[in-house]
């Protein structure tokens, strides 16, 4: 009965919206269902000559309740609207051939894995280049444009063995490794690790270049074209220690796949290797950092540099106490289609381009390859999400967002520093709605430490009134809010709430010490930072202190749980994909790096430390009505964490409701099924309306 009625109400609401919109007079509030109207620009790829930008345009098919991705083309000169290149529903990863005549991309059809296709930019439909059982992805053109290296999970020995009939029902999975599944990716298939392959661009049978039980990734050609390079972690037992990857190379002409000892090692050091780039003289720059002697829960990424012949490695940016090759959080980064973080040597090899994340902004920056001096190139109070550059490393195609805009497509000239907008796919939508205003504030916490925060105010805000407040806490905990668009906050602000989102200690973009200071002390002082923010806003007089709520996801869910065990000040709370009990989280998370990064000892050696820091331990102190939102396929913070809060409160006959999302994982709020993202926002809206606005909402009655 109840759900029928609910559906009817939702329907009426959307009709109403259409009517108001058609009247065209006033702007309407931004609502949950605006998610269906967003368009995202993913994976911008500028042509080698800088005249055109190919990108992935991501939309919602609300009837199919899924995302659609297709390739589009923008003229770098601007002036004309971008046009579609492909009509597929799941096309991605456009990559220009060195001469700009062809776009390689990947296309998935039906339930088959994606394959590499080639689209001639002189006209004509795409042709399919690979037909591999394990699919093909991450195409990389050889410098001469004759070959394409790529990644594939194909295992020819197993996949072509017709005697290995698929059983009618999936058999029991034998798990021998401590890390065996990954949130949003599912079970790791040890028989199908991703390997490096190469294929002639003119067509032909793809050749496998690497083999064995380890994964190889980050496939790129060496500048000369003599090598296909890739990164790989080839330790037998990598689960409980720091990152350790090497950069390897194999000849593209290998007659049969090489394994381990057959690789040429280009970079070998004690640390991880993210993106990398090669200078003309052979120096390699990469994103990483040497593992410190004592483990941290947070280590800033640095730009690392080798000599011309490869290792040894030095850190270029260790004196720059902000995050390199990093960004900030948003709930409207492209939910599909991905993108590359900018990284390139200048043509003369004297500097490097990368992104830096600093005090809630993400900027394109130039790093001096000798001194490591960092020069920020794009303006603060924005976020550079993804980007690529021309062969001349002068012009960049960038997606850039800010607090009131999901990412738009820009052209950036590193010479003139001109940032020119090429495509704003959400301009009309954003024009038609009322957007909340955002005030950046900074306040001293209990110990004098300065905390940056943002206050979002409802449209038509007047400081003379009293508003309900929602404190939103980010996860990570080593992540950062900042100058990025949050649909969730806009919906809440449009519903009449002031939204406060601070970066407490532990957040990134404020330096190594500010981030790592919470090691072994989480949750703790970060909670005090958050409450100091609440006090700061309350002090301004426009908040009704009896109508304050707290919410957050992941690590923010942990802090939400923690906050309501520490204070009765919140009238409602929503804990989303939370952690509540460290012991069972230690045992069930997809990753295994708790010790010694987060805890000094495992729980079976010292349970007390885990118990002392677990919110559920103090559930008897909770008085705040709590909504627990959790996805059933969340392998990062498995749903047992949310269940613990629910059962603990229900056992005490306290007010709690659980909203469980089937078929979703830890990414629900960022890239989940469209209808469920909208439902999630509606639950936020209704729970707060029930407890802060005293609206008669019956959905959560027993």
């Amino acid at each position, binding site marked *: 009965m109840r759900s*029928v009625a609910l559906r009817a109400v939702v329907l009426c609401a959307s009709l109403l919206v259409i009517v108001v919109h058609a009247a065209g007079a006033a702007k309407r509030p931004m609502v949950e269902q605006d998610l269906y109207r967003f368009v995202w620009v993913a994976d911008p790829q500028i042509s080698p000559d800088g005249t055109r930008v190919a990108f992935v345009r991501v939309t919602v098919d609300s009837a199919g309740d899924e995302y659609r991705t297709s390739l589009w083309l923008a003229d770098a000169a601007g002036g004309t609207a971008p046009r579609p290149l492909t009509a597929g529903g799941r096309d991605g990863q456009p990559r220009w051939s060195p001469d700009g005549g062809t776009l390689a991309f990947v296309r998935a059809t039906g339930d088959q894995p994606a394959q590499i296709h080639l689209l001639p930019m002189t006209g004509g439909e795409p042709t399919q280049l690979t037909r591999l059982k394990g699919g093909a992805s991450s195409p990389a053109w050889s410098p001469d444009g004759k070959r394409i290296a790529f990644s594939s999970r194909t295992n020819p020995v197993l996949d072509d063995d017709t005697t290995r009939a698929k059983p009618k029902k999936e058999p029991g999975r034998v798990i021998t490794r401590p890390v065996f599944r990954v949130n949003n990716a599912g079970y790791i298939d040890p028989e199908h690790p991703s390997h490096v392959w190469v294929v002639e661009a003119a067509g032909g049978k793809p050749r496998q270049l690497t083999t064995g039980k380890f994964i190889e990734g980050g496939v790129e050609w060496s500048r000369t074209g003599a090598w296909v390079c890739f990164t790989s972690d080839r330790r037998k037992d990598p689960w409980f220690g720091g990152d350790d990857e090497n950069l390897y190379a194999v000849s593209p002409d290998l007659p049969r796949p090489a394994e381990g000892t057959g690789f040429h090692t280009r970079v070998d050091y004690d640390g991880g290797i993210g993106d990398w780039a090669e200078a003309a003289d052979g120096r390699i720059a990469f994103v990483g950092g040497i593992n410190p002697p004592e483990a941290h829960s947070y280590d800033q990424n640095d730009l690392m540099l080798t000599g011309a012949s490869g290792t040894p490695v030095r850190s270029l940016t260790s004196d720059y106490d902000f995050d390199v090759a990093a960004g900030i959080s948003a709930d409207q980064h492209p939910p599909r289609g991905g993108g590359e973080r900018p990284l390139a040597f200048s043509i003369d090899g004297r500097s490097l381009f990368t992104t830096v994340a600093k005090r809630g902004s993400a900027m394109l920056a130039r790093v001096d390859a000798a001194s490591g001096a960092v020069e920020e190139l794009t303006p603060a109070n924005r976020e550079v999400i993804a980007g690529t550059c021309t062969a001349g490393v002068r012009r960049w195609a960038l997606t850039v967002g800010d607090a009131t805009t999901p990412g738009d497509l820009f052209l950036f000239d590193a010479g003139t520093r001109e940032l020119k907008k090429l495509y704003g796919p959400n301009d009309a939508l954003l024009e038609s709605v009322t957007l909340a205003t955002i005030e950046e504030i900074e306040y001293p916490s209990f110990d004098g430490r300065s905390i940056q925060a943002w206050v979002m105010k409802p449209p038509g805000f007047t400081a003379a009134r009293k508003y309900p407040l929602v404190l939103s806490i980010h996860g990570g905990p080593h992540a950062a809010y900042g100058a990025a668009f949050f649909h969730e906050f806009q919906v809440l602000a449009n519903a009449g709430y002031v939204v406060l989102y601070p970066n407490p200690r532990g957040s990134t973009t404020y330096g190594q010490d500010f981030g790592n200071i919470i090691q072994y002390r989480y949750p703790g002082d970060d909670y005090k930072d958050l409450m100091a923010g609440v006090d700061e806003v309350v002090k301004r007089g426009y908040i009704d202190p009896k109508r304050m709520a707290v919410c957050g996801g992941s690590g923010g869910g942990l802090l939400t749980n923690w906050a309501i065990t520490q204070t009765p000040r919140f009238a409602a709370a929503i804990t989303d994909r939370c952690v509540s009990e460290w012991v069972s989280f230690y*045992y069930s998370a997809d990753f295994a790096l708790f010790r010694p990064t987060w805890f000094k000892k495992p729980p079976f050696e010292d349970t007390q430390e885990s*118990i002392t820091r677990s919110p*559920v*331990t103090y559930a008897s102190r909770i008085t705040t009505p709590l909504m627990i939102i959790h996805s059933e396929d969340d392998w990062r913070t498995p749903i047992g964490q949310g269940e613990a809060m*629910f*059962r*603990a409160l229900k056992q005490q006959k306290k007010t709690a409701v659980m909203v469980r999302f089937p078929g979703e994982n830890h990414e629900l709020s960022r890239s989940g099924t469209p209808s469920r993202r909208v439902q999630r926002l509606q639950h936020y809206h209704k729970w707060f309306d029930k407890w802060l606005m005293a609206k008669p909402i019956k959905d959560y009655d027993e």
Partner: protein
Amino acid sequence: MNDPGVVSEAPVADETSSRPAAATGAALRPVRDDDLLRLTWVADPRMSPDGTRVAFTRVWVDAAADEYRTALSLAEGGDGAGAASVRPLTFGPRDSQPRWSPDGRFIAFVRSTGGKEPAQLYVLPLSGGEATLVCTLAKGAAEPAWSPDGRRIAFLSGTNLVLDAPGVEKPKNEPGRVVTRPVFRENDEGFTDFDRMSQVWVVDAQGGAATPLTRGPFAAGAPAWSADGRRILFVSDRRDEPWFGLEASVLYGVSPDRDTPADTGDLEIVVDFGGPIGSFAEHADGRIAAFGYRTIEPHTYTQPRLLITEGATPRREVRDLAPGVDDEFGGGINSDQHPPRGGGAVPLAFEAGGETVCCAVARHGAATLARVEIASGAVTPLTPEERDLIAGTTSADGRHWALTLGSPSRPGDLYRLDARTGAITLLWAPNEAVFAELALGEVEEFWYPSFDGTKIQAWLVKPPGFDPARKYPLLLEIHGGPHTAYGFGFFHEFHHLAGAGYLVLYTNPRGSTTYGEGFARTIQYRFPGDDARDLMAGVDAVIQRGCVDPAKVGVTGGSGGGLLTNWLVTQTDRFAAAVTQRCVSDWASFFYSADFAMFVPFWFRKSPVEDPREYLERSPVAFADRITTPLMIIHSEEDWRTPIAQGEAMFRALKQQRKTAVMVRFPGESHELSRSGTPSRRVQNQRHIRGWFDRWIKGEPRPEYGV
């Protein structure tokens, strides 16, 4: 397709003892894991009202489809009127719950046609002709019950006429589930849909529109008509907040003539004595016999009693018919070869005259049908001792019983019993052809004293061709519950392991049922603990015989037995290998995630929120640093009883220490994998258990386990 019902088999003559497996001629082979695929089960035997025929559900495996099949069969004869014969009545693939019309001319049953289609109500004429569909409901029909005049059929359905009306659109992707109740899902059932609870319905047996008689967010149990046909009786727990308290339910009555469904206030309370009610039976004079007990104090176990009520309703008083008999009334014992589909009724009926009641009683690892004299409370067994009474029903006069009985050497066979003469006749033994090929190990029952002198009952399966002069590897098997019992039931797994050369020991440590209420209750607030010592005393007792290599001892168990397996490897290094199945390892997270919520004050004095210490002290994973035994963890991914995080904890704890562990995760399975899971996965389950022991006890290579 392998439908054993089509092949007519000569029934074996009156013989209820465990038949020796030795057939003459061809060499016998050991039991294999995939022998499961060839077994046939007899489910839900239903004696015709006149006592001449037995309808039942035969269950078998369609190995190609990797599914169970169920269809109806009919057994006749064997009662002095001629030799027994069995023939199929329907051919499935999913027919079950046969119910005789009072005149014996029709059988109502439920049939599901498509793989995911709910079963609907059908009626099959026994005068010839195909079954006809009685009614079609969105959520199907279950548990049909004929009215005494044979005109109407009551049944259960979760159909919600408003929500399931045609034209109500379903969203493309399942929306988020709003959960407001602390207990919201159930192992093997899934999420509870409070808008679609099982309600009592009624329909004209000739067909037509079905009418719901009850409503509300409470489930009704199987309906039965009162003898006078004026009301339909059913058991239901209709408390608003039943989650954390004592168990209780009420026997309600509802008129079959209602035109609007009744909520709790409109129902007639027939029996409400402040405790749970299991099966019940009504005599023509209105007295009702039922299994149940009063709940006064929170115990982890209260032994069900045989109760009787009479007089005007609501009846608040009940009489315990046999207060001096410390056995489990309505109880049974464990087996991994009870029918995986098709179910069956716990025997309970008045005999003609109403001075006696016949019902199932479990004692010392055996389940029997027994007669209880209402006046004296005297209990007299009617079926042979040392058997596993699985299910049974009786004729209208309570004299002729259709029963399924198992033994340590056979899954359940179909029998008829004349309760007046005591004559028992085998009607169908569907697995004789399979067992004729098998060398079955001897199963020896014995008792041993535990550390404190407590007597413990146990069984030992010996490898075929056992030679007491040799040294054998030994496997200890531990049952779950913990309030259940091993006994004289058939275990495919144990015979398979014995066939692989292992001695297999299974015991009933304290906490087990069938040894009286005190024996079971003693583990409250102490689980695991002394039960583990009982188990080790059993291992020592077998080793003392001199036929065991003490360096080659393994341990395994499921659920509560998985908890004890985990516990044992933290307490001793005597085991060379262990397999923990669907285990509990960390009581606090189990408290938070189990499908049920009755931990406090039953299993623990306080919740982990109030006292985490008690939970830690009893959690095996808290002592994982002491483990040296290589451990295999088998767990099902959709186990809502002991969620898979329990197994993951043991795995991660051992892997973090770089100790030997492997995890086998079964997708699409629940806590019931070993008993009623998908056939192929049950075979794999046994293969993995054996594989791990073969690796660590026999030293055979098993590279698939990474060791």
